[in-house]
């Protein structure tokens, strides 16, 4: 059912973990797992990993799992979690940090040449630009 996970200081100080800290500026170790962020999140039921576990995984250095997760993209950045946190952890910034890590990897969400010419001509410009922006940040 559950897979055994190895915890190590190598994981805790990985490049991903450092990058998350650099981008967000948040010390995730301040979190004591009360769960108030998840309890107050208006979008939690649509997420695959609730916010408090996002922070937990960040504490344990499992950034790779978080990068694969849908949660950061479902997060509406309403900042309720940040406002509610008793330890001053800015969870919304962590979510943004995770989104940034993904975006900065610079993989191509769309290849314009792969889109059918007819469709390409019909697509609204804003849709194309939106997609490009996500890839070039």
């Amino acid at each position, binding site marked *: 059912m559950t897979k*055994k996970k*190895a*915890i190590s*200081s190598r994981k805790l100080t990985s490049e991903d973990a450092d990058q998350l800290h650099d981008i967000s500026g948040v010390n995730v*170790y301040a979190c004591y*797992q009360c769960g108030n962020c998840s309890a107050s999140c208006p979008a939690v039921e649509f997420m695959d990993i609730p916010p408090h*576990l996002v922070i*937990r995984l960040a504490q344990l250095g499992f950034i790779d799992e978080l990068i694969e997760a849908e949660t950061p993209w479902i997060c509406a950045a309403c900042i309720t979690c940040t406002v509610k946190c008793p330890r001053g952890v800015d969870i919304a910034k962590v979510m943004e940090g995770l989104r940034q890590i993904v975006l900065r990897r610079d993989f191509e969400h769309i290849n314009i040449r792969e889109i059918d010419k007819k469709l390409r001509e019909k697509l609204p410009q804003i849709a194309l630009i939106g997609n490009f922006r996500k890839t070039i940040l």
Partner: protein
Amino acid sequence: MKRIGVFVCHCGINIAATVDIESVVKDLEDYPGVVLVQDYKYMCSDPGQNIIKEKIKSERLDGIVVAACSPTLHENTFRLTCKTVGMNPYSCEIANIREQCSWVHKNKDEATLKAKLIIRSIVEKALLDEELEPVQVPVIRKALVLGGGIAGIQAALSIANSGYEVILVEKQSSIGGRMAQLSETFPTLDCSQCILTPKMVDVAQHEKIRLMTYSELEDISGFVGNFKVKIRQKAKYVDWDKCTGCGLCIEKCPKKAPSEFDQGLEKRKAVFTPFPQAVPNKPVIDHENCTYFKTGKCQLCKIVCSFDAVDFDETETFVEEEVGAIVVATGYDVYPVLNMDEYGSGKLPDVIDGLTFERILSSSGPTGGEVRRPSDGTVPKEIVFIKCVGSRDPEHHFPYCSKICCMYTTKHAMLYKHRVHDGQPYIFYMDVRAGGKGYEEFYQRAQEEDNVIFLRGKVSKVYQDDDKVVVCGIDTIYGRNVEIRADMVVLAMAIRPSKGVEELTRLLKIAIDQNGFLTEAHPKLRPVESLSAGIYLAGCAQAPKDIPDTVAQASATASMVSNLFSQEYLLHDPLITGVNEDLCSGCGVCVSVCPYDARKLNKEEGIVEVNEVLCEGCGSCSAACPSGAAQQKNFTDTQLSNMVKAILSE
């Protein structure tokens, strides 16, 4: 016949809901000897007591019966009430119609009948009660403190500062106890020895304190205010009067043994002081390890000693003293790791208990405060701390919480991080209990500033793999099993009462609880007294506690002792069993059944004599006496037989 007044309490609805008070009052009005029956909602209240006072005077009562709650609660209240209007307090009797009647029954008719019978029987007792005066006992204003840890030190200093003499007895050759072994103390991280040693020196220099180290209590007799104690001074083989503590003998001694003070991490000599700041700073020779005692050869210490202090012929000596109060502050031991099969049974060198880790962290320890693991002396880069090892496990070990582990483990992780900056501490916990001033803040600091990883869950096993110690546990927050390949594991072992405390309690006749800790007289209201008058408790011997709590408790204990010593004489309950010399045949049966050594056979006179102060009025002798000579005051055979008749005469 005596004029008895009966006062029936409703206790709100506690009694009145189950017992028909009106019917009880009516029934007793006609009972022989009863001249007045009065009921009231709360007899123990001021108006209730005033009714009793008025009626005693107006009805010229000779004795009263208060039908109310258990005598353990308000007997004293009502006896004092009687005393204020000039009635002998022992002419007041309590009929318990609450705990033994209304609270345990549902049927009102039956409960009412039972209440009537209880009160009638107590009226019979009151009719034959004698007027008694408490026995006066002198007090010896000198205290014996057993245990020279922080609890004993604090209690001794506090009693001595009140102006009373103290004998402080310690089993080891130096005072200081467990606190002397600690590195730094939570939550302020001040050095343990730095705050303890001034107190140790105070003890040594105090003119009211007689320090007896390397000694143990051998025997005790007597009672509160008047104990006779015999203290065994173990053979030190060094004459401390001659010894200057220069340490040359220690330097030259060729034989080594594991140091108890350093938890076996380091060796000490066969002639040794446990640590450099020992008080008194004089060595003893360890008989078991000394080469001379084993082979008859060596005597190097004797040869180098310029003061001729070494004396291989020294024997143990005994000192007899009289004291008025005894403080038991015998401290704690750590539950041995060898009891934990799943954590390597103490066979893995890098799996150690918290106290051993304290020595590793201590600047006076074997590594000078550098964190190095015991197996190969390398600096551990990842340490796993496991809490609740042996504690909170009623199925396999002990049910209680050892209380100090949450904080000291957090401290360990923090200190480790301060010493090894690139190291990573992990703590496996079940709950974090950081109740105490500045404790929660300390715990949050460990997480936020020192990046201590807290993993909620138990560790199922720990095993050696190459030079790593593999820890298999779970993080129940994250919901997955986890595995850490650590360099070292520190176990927060359960706190146990120190070895030998059971024999000591048998000697002192005080109780221990199911876990072996000393039992206090009342868990909330009498937390520093034992159930035996004149014997008090302090520190971890009573229950696991940290230094602030221990110091507070020891100070409270000292205050109780001062309280006792400030009295001119003590009053002893006169409800004792005497001897009717005309009836006593001198058979001595009562002497053998007395649990308090209160009765002695006078062979010349052929009768038994009673020490009224030692007698606790248990009644064993009255039951055993074949001739009826041993009659307990106000519980005579005639009284008891009348009481039984009253109950059966329904």
